[in-house]
Structures are given as C-alpha cells and as structure tokens.
C-alpha cells in the first residue's frame, strides 16, 4: 500500500483522540529540545482544532473489541500499519518543513501490548537517534505492556499518556472488556514515578537524561456510557491528585459504528464536553472541588451557564466579595475574575483602595463580576446577586442568562483555549 493511503487511513483513525498539544515544557529543566514551552500551532483543521503534531496510529490492527472504538477487532475496513522507520522519516520530512512540531503516536494493539509498545519505541528511537529530532514526541502507553517498556518510552518521549477512557471500572469493563481499569491506574502510577525521577535527574545536573519532561495526560470519553458529570469530574480530580497528571482531556463521543452496548447518540455532546473542560479548569486553577460543583442530587453541570456562574448563583451566602479586603481564594470564586485579574487586584490594592473604574483595567469582566463584588464605590444596586440568585433558584433561568447578556459573554479567550466556538 502507498504511503499516502496508509497516512490517510491511520491519520483518520487517530483523530478521535483529542489531545494534540505540543505543550507542557514550560519551566522544564529537561532535555534541551526545539519545542518552545508555549507550543506552536501550525494550522487549524476544518473543525477548528489545532494541529501541532503528526497525530497517527502506528497501526489500526487491534486485538481488543472496545465498543466505542473505530478500529476495534470486530469493525470492518482495511488493516494496515506503518513501519517504525517509515513513520520516523515521514515525521522528519514534515518537521523540517515546519508543518508539525513532532509526533503524537497511538496505536491499536497489534499482536500483544508489548509488541506494539516496542514498535512505538522503535519509531521514537529512530527519530531521536537517526534524525536527531529536537521536536516533540507524545507516545501513548499501550495498557498491559511491560513497565520496562514504559520506562524506555519515557526516555525518548516528551509526554506519555494512557487513556482511562471511562470514569468507572464497571463502565470500562462493560464497553472494553479486554481493558483493566486497575492496570491503567497502575500505569499512571508508574508514569507519575517516572516524571518525579526525571525531575530529580534534571536537578542533578544531567538535563539530557530527563524523562518525559512534559509529564503525562489521559482522556475520558463523554457520552459513551451513562456516567454522569459528577463521576467524570470526581475521577479527574482523583487523577490530578494521586498521579499528578498535566491534563485530562474530554472527548465527546462520536458513534462510529452500531453496538448494542453504547447509547444511541444522534450527535456528539459538544456542549457537555465544553462544560466539563470549564469545570476541570475550575478544579485545577480556581481551587474548586468536584463535590462543590456537583452533588448526587445534581450530578450534571448546568447547560445554560458556565459552572462558575452556576455555583455563584446557588451560593448567595458567599457574596458579596470585597475586592479591597477579601483573600485571593475568595476573589477566585467571583465570576469574571480569573487567576490573572485576582493577582493584579492583590497587587493594586497594596497601593490604594480600588474603585469600580479600576476593575476593568485589572482585567475583571464587569458584566459578570458586578453583582458579586463590592469596592470603594459600595454595592451596585442595579446588580443585586440575591435577586439574580432568586430568579435562578426559582426556575427563571432565561431571565438570568439574558441579564448576563447571553451566557457566553466575556469568555472568548477561554473558549479559544478550549478549542470550542459557540454561536
């Protein structure tokens, strides 16, 4: 088969994995390589997602029969694979023309996990040793492979990841019977150890021996199982806490084939995926906990408003927050105030008392923050949080949404970061 044909099939098969960032190297004292810390986007695909890496499968041959997967063993279609050196050369050709920053390599399970992982490592080794690729390498860990192979992969890769796919053990057993939830967690624990070891090596003055300096990540599929948002976010929270993951990616499930085990979705739950990313952001950077955002009685995130505004409307007792006195942790709970504007507020108020006019200049999104804060100008009587909260809790949600000028007000930059557009 021609290289073009292989590329077409194996790139299309890999597109369901949402991660494609060549990032995470900021502040790493790891191997001195060519990828800048902030990552570079070379092009944006027709679906608006960034293209930084050559994202392909090594092969779409697979012994597993996961219900949600396009290349599961029971699916039809041609089965092919790259040779490691062939794929390394292709990556190098695209890298030196500045089409990509490197490679994101995943794979079906070809023969057995160890064999597949060895082939992936050979590809990475070829890139580093034959082509001296200074770019970014992200390798997937094949669940069930030997820990020694994971260690080898960590030596060549900037980032490793193992996909947990579903938030609960029972869900994974139901949809992907050959995958073992505990084994995947075991791989994550090993990756966390390797990251730690890599940091120590780099600190010890041998930057070339740093392991996977961009850390490790995972992906959760949204909508392939009946799991609610609370289960998904609780799992993410646990993974961040226990294994120090850099990112959890959420992928709205797109049915590729009919299977009695998966729900019939007319369309991918893009908005739900979007809300989960927002909530994930709140957990990582704003000090929220999953159980604050959701509860067993309310296990799904609000669709109409973002999770932070939803939380604020349900907790009128927390407000108003005084921008001249309250702590950073309290400021971060205010819709329209993010980590950057909170930091600026703390810096600015050391010198003088803040007034309403100062807040937009510090980056506060006034349309969202106004009802929830007080400053030297007192409370804004036209924007009373208790009234808004009353409307919300009383079921008059449209009125609240329209008060805030449409629910997407002021979130352009965040949406762009999340790779999502809302009309």
């Amino acid at each position, binding site marked *: 088969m021609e*290289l*073009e044909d292989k*590329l*077409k*099939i194996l*790139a*299309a098969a*890999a*597109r*369901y994995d949402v991660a494609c960032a060549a990032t995470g190297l900021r502040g790493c004292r790891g191997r001195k390589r*060519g*990828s*800048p810390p*902030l990552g*570079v*986007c*070379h*092009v*944006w*695909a*027709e*679906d*608006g*997602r*960034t*293209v930084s890496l*050559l*994202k392909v499968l090594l092969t779409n041959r697979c012994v597993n029969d996961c219900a949600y997967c396009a290349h599961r063993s029971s699916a039809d279609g041609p089965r092919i694979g790259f040779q490691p050196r062939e794929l390394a050369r*292709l990556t190098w*050709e*695209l890298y*030196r*023309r*500045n*089409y990509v920053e490197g490679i994101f390599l995943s794979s079906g399970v070809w023969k057995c996990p160890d064999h597949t992982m060895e082939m992936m490592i050979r590809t990475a080794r070829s890139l580093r040793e034959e082509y*001296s690729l*200074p*770019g970014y390498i992200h390798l997937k860990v094949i669940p069930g492979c030997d820990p020694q192979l994971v260690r080898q992969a960590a030596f060549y890769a900037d980032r490793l990841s193992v996909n947990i796919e579903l938030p609960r053990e029972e869900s994974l057993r139901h949809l992907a019977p050959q995958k073992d939830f505990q084994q995947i967690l075991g791989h994550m624990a090993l990756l966390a150890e390797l990251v730690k070891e890599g940091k120590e090596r780099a600190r010890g003055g041998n930057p070339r021996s740093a392991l996977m300096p961009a850390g490790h990540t995972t992906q959760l599929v949204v909508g392939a199982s009946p799991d609610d948002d609370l289960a998904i976010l609780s799992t993410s929270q646990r993974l961040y806490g226990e294994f120090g993951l850099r990112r959890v990616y959420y992928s*709205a499930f*797109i049915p590729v084939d009919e299977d009695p085990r998966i729900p019939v979705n*007319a*369309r*991918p739950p*893009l*908005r739900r995926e979007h809300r989960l990313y927002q909530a994930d952001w709140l957990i990582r950077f704003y000090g929220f906990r999953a159980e604050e955002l959701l509860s067993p009685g309310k296990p799904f995130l609000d669709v109409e408003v973002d999770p932070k505004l939803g939380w604020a409307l349900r907790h009128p007792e927390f407000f108003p927050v005084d921008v001249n006195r309250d702590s950073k942790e309290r400021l971060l709970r205010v819709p329209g105030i993010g980590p950057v504007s909170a930091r*600026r*507020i703390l*810096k*600015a108020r050391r*010198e003088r008392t803040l007034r309403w006019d*100062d807040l937009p*200049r*510090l980056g506060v999104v006034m349309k969202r923050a106004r009802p929830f804060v007080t400053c030297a100008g007192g409370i804004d009587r036209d924007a009373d949080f208790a009234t808004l909260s009353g409307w919300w809790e009383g079921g008059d949600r449209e009125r609240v949404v329209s008060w805030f000028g449409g629910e997407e007000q002021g979130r352009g930059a965040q949406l*762009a970061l999340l*790779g*999502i*557009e*809302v*009309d």
Partner: protein
Amino acid sequence: MLEVLLYDGSYPGFLSACLNALRRGDEEVEIRQGEEGQLVLGGYYLVEAGPDDAAKMRSWIAEQMGRKAERWAELAFRSEFQDREEALLAFFRLGLKEGRRWDRQPLPPEVERVARMARFTWREYHRWKGITRFSRPVEGGRYLAEVEPSADIIELLAAHFRKRMPTLSWEIRDLKRAKRAVHRASYHLLEETTERFLPERDRAFSLWKVYYTSIYLPERLNPRLKRSHLPARYWKFVPEYVESATKGPVVDRLDFDSGLNIETKIQI
C-alpha cells in the same frame, strides 16, 4: 522649542537617540526616523547609531526598569506602529522617574501603550512560528521560506528556527522588508535581499495535504473557530488553506446545540 532627534531606523539607533533625549532632561524632544537631508530644518539633530550608546541604554533599561521592560521595549519597537518612538520615550521617562514601579497595577497609560505594541509583535511572532513553511531544499540543500509579517520579527523567527533546526541549512526571506536570515550549521547571517523564489510542491507537501484533509471530524465541523484562530489575511501563506478554499463549498456554521451542520458558501 521642540527639538527633533533623527535616527537611522534601527533599534540600536533608536536606543542611542533615547539616551540622548533622556540626557536632555525635561527639554521637549521628539524622536523620528529620518535622514541627513532633513537637517537643513532648524531643531533637527541626527543621532549616530553608536554601539556604545545603544549598549549603555540597554543596560540602563535592564538595571533601572528590569529585564521585562527591556523585552517589552524591543517588542514594541518591532511593532512598527507609527507612534512607537513617542510611546517608548514616554515609557523610558516613566522608568527614569519611578524605576521598577512602572509595572504597578493598574498599569499607567504610558505602559499600557507600550504593552499593546509589544503584544501585537508577540502575537505576530507566535503566528509566524507556526505558519512559516519551508520549501524543498534548493542549491546547497538549503530550505527556503518566505514570510510577510506585519511586524519586524525576522530576527526573532531566525532565533526560533536556529534552535528548532540547528543541523539544517535554511533561509527565511521577509518580503515586506527585503531582508533575509540565512542559517548554516556553522554560521548565521542577516542581510538585505530582494530575491524571490517560487516554492515547489513536492511529495512532502502532497503527504501533508493528505494528512490535513484526513484529520477533521465532520461531526465537529467549525470553520468559524478555524477563522478565529487564524484570521483570513494569513490564509494565503498556508498552502493547504489556499487549496481547500478553491474547492468550493465550505461549511460556514455549526449549530452548537443541535449539532446540525448548516452549509453555506463563504468567500475567501
């Protein structure tokens, strides 16, 4: 009386002029890019781009205002905004008066102006790091790229690619400013040029095109998001965009709630 200091258009020349202006204390001074011919007019002085003065000014900025100010100043100068000289001189005067307190919050108006210019250059640099495309190798195995950035960023780009492709020979030409950066494994050169070359489409490009057309998910189609990431004025520099744009119907809009794709033709 207003005095005008002329400099040669280079950053070292500008820094020399700034040093001269700061030494004049509270005198009303304006800095402009200009030539010797303008000296016939009264109140115009030509400032030579002395390396010593430029170095002195640089170290003054670093010591008095900090490294961040030094970085912002250079980025703001590279923005090529018409009022950059005035904005930067006001910025340095603020530094003279307040030292490192220039970046207090909220930012003083003099700093906001410079920050806006620096952000513009940074964004332009960040975009071009991604969309600079090298052709197949030409004479001597050199890879060539042509760029037309809106800010003077070729030195920044060259530094980026020197790190990214240290073992390859390459050349980047800035068509707007008639400059090129040439890199071989052993030396690096920045010089003026007006040469053009026509990039040829080779196998790597056709493989890239195959890749680009295979990766998007029709269920997530969202060209508006694509446009918001990379405004249409850059598309002519991205070959795969040019080719996809000439193929006709492009889906313009995704109804987010329903997941239905509404097809309309858009003009590129």
